[in-house]
Every structure is written in structure tokens, then in C-alpha cells.
């Protein structure tokens, strides 16, 4: 495996370091990294947690493509070498660890929670939904914030102000929820939000949870365009 190393104060820029990792049929790229960390070089830094595609921590660039390293098998790449780099589009803190503060700020700006207005119902109150109402947003709720979509998005790499795929998909997750009463038009209708997207579609292609952020963005473009043109229309 060829792993990008960047040690602040030591490396002026990222350099590649090669490690010999046994090719096991059941090893994911993350197992290879853990082998390096445990057996070969304890100084290697990377994020991981659940090893089962749920936590969204272990996204990296594997042979040039944004992938979850726990869900990408070493055997996909034959005898190697496999090149591991940090997610593109984000500042590197160390080795394979990137700074995601920008995304976290954008995510909270779309208020990704159920916004209720009026009388507060008791905590025991139920908000029943039909299967169709659940289906309307369920796909977007699968997002695990792994940021592969940001890393694959050429618009985000060119313009870091772009609100980005996951934040917009998660905003739609609440917009399309029958229990939500919020209005996110002020954030989503901005030039750097849905209008920044040029529908390249890479976000949807790389999503490990089969969320379709590109669809979420195009759908909100219709909403936002109609609301801009017809000021009296809502949603």
C-alpha cells in the first residue's frame, strides 16, 4: 500500500510511504491500514470507528476515488499497490485526517432537525406518518456524513463556499418530512447553495449509502425557482 503521509512540522507537503501488507481475501482497505498501524508504523494517523459502513469516519481517497475504506476490499486492486490519500477538497490535518469544520458549519446552517411551530406537544404525543410520508424523505435520512460526496464534487473543490451535496440532501430530508414546519429557503435558495450545483452527479455515484444528493439538489432547484418566480407560492 502507498499511503500519503503528512506530518506537520516534519513534511513540507504530503509524501507517499510504501508498506507491504499481506493480501487477505477478507481484508478491507481499512484492515490494511490497521495492519500498518499495529505492526509496521504506529505513527500513521487516520479516522475510523465502526468498520461496517455506518459511522462515516473512514472516508479516504483510494486509488483516486472517494471511498469508505471499511467497505472497499483490497482484493479489488489485485496485487496492488493501492494508493491511499486523504479526502480531496479538505485541508489535511495529519496523514489521512482532514479538517471537516467547514462541513459541520454548513450542516448546522441548514437546521437539520425537525422544526415545529406553535404549541409544544407533550413528549408522549405521537406524530404518526403514513408509509408514503416516510418514503418521501427516507432515502435522504440514510446519509452518514462521510463526506465522500463533497470530496467527489468538482464544484466544491473549485468553490469551497458551495453549500454542498450532503448538507442540501439533509435539508431536503427535513423539508420533505411531513412533521417539519421549517423553511430553509433563505439558506438553500442562495447562489452558493442549490444554484452552485451544475449537476455533475458525482455525489450520487460515490455515495456508499445510495442517497441521491444530486436528485435532492435538482428537486430543490425546482422548488426554489418556482418560489423565486412566484413569490406567493410555498414549497
Amino acid at each position: 500500500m502507498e499511503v500519503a503521509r503528512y506530518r506537520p512540522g516534519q513534511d513540507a507537503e504530503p509524501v507517499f510511504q510504501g508498506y507491504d501488507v499481506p493480501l487477505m481475501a477478507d481484508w478491507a482497505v481499512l484492515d490494511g491500514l490497521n495492519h500498518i498501524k499495529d505492526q509496521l508504523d504506529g505513527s500513521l494517523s487516520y479516522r475510523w470507528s465502526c468498520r461496517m459502513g455506518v459511522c462515516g469516519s473512514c472516508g479516504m481517497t483510494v486509488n483516486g476515488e472517494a471511498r469508505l475504506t471499511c467497505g472497499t476490499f483490497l482484493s479489488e486492486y489485485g496485487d496492488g499497490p493501492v494508493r491511499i490519500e486523504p479526502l480531496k477538497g479538505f485541508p489535511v490535518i495529519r496523514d489521512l485526517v482532514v479538517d471537516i469544520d467547514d462541513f459541520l458549519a454548513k450542516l448546522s446552517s441548514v437546521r437539520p432537525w425537525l422544526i415545529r411551530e406553535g404549541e409544544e406537544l407533550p413528549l408522549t404525543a405521537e406524530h404518526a406518518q403514513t408509509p408514503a410520508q416516510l418514503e418521501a424523505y427516507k432515502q435522504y435520512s440514510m446519509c452518514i456524513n462521510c463526506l465522500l460526496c463533497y470530496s467527489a464534487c468538482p464544484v466544491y473543490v473549485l468553490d469551497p463556499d458551495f453549500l454542498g451535496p450532503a448538507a442540501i440532501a439533509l435539508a431536503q430530508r427535513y423539508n420533505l418530512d411531513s412533521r417539519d414546519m421549517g423553511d430553509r429557503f433563505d439558506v438553500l435558495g442562495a447562489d452558493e447553495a442549490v444554484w452552485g450545483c451544475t449537476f455533475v452527479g458525482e455525489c450520487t455515484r460515490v455515495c456508499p449509502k445510495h442517497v441521491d444528493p444530486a436528485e435532492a439538489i435538482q428537486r430543490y432547484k425546482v422548488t426554489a425557482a418556482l418560489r423565486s418566480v412566484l413569490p406567493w407560492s410555498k414549497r
Partner: protein
Amino acid sequence: MRARRSPEPYLWLLFSGGGVVAALVLPVLVLLFGVLMPLGIVDWPAADHLRGLLDHALVRVALVVVVVLCLFHAAHRIRHTSEELLGIARFDLPVALLCYGAAIAGGVVAVRLLG
């Protein structure tokens, strides 16, 4: 609260309208006039017949709408593609003026020809 006024929603509506119209109408026209008629599978329409069709104001208006929407679709796509591929996003205003200006000019030509 309202988002900053931006022309993008209007331009995008023209773009998406153009995409729909282009996808629905152009393949049929290309198939008829570009493939089937040159191959002799379908007879060429007589000039009188076409002129008779164009005499109807509604047909002319529909043609202008199709041409204008398709031109705006192309302009929008050329603007964004060139800005991203050539890295000239900082010249957005002149690029946009050029692209949409060309679409408007094409629309004027279409109106003049069919008017």
C-alpha cells in the same frame, strides 16, 4: 427571510425548460429531416405544405418558443461548462453576457425570420 435576489432561478428555469423541449422535439425533427427523409423512407414535405403550416401564427409562436428555449439551454450549459473547465468563473459576468446575449440574438433572428 429571503435569499439575495439572483437571476439564477430564472436562468435555470429557461435552461430546464429548454432541456425538456430539446429532449421532446429535437430528436423527432432530426430523425425526420436528418435521417428518414434523406434516406427516402419518408417523403420530403412539399414547400407549399410547409409554408401552409407556417402561415398559422400558433405554429410560428411555437417554433420561436422552441428555438429560444433551446438557445437559452445551450447558453446556460456553455456558460457553466466553460467557467468550470477553463477555470474562468471569475469572469462570470462577461461570460454570462456573451452566452445569454448570443441566445437573445438568436431569438431575435428567429423572430425576424418567422415574423
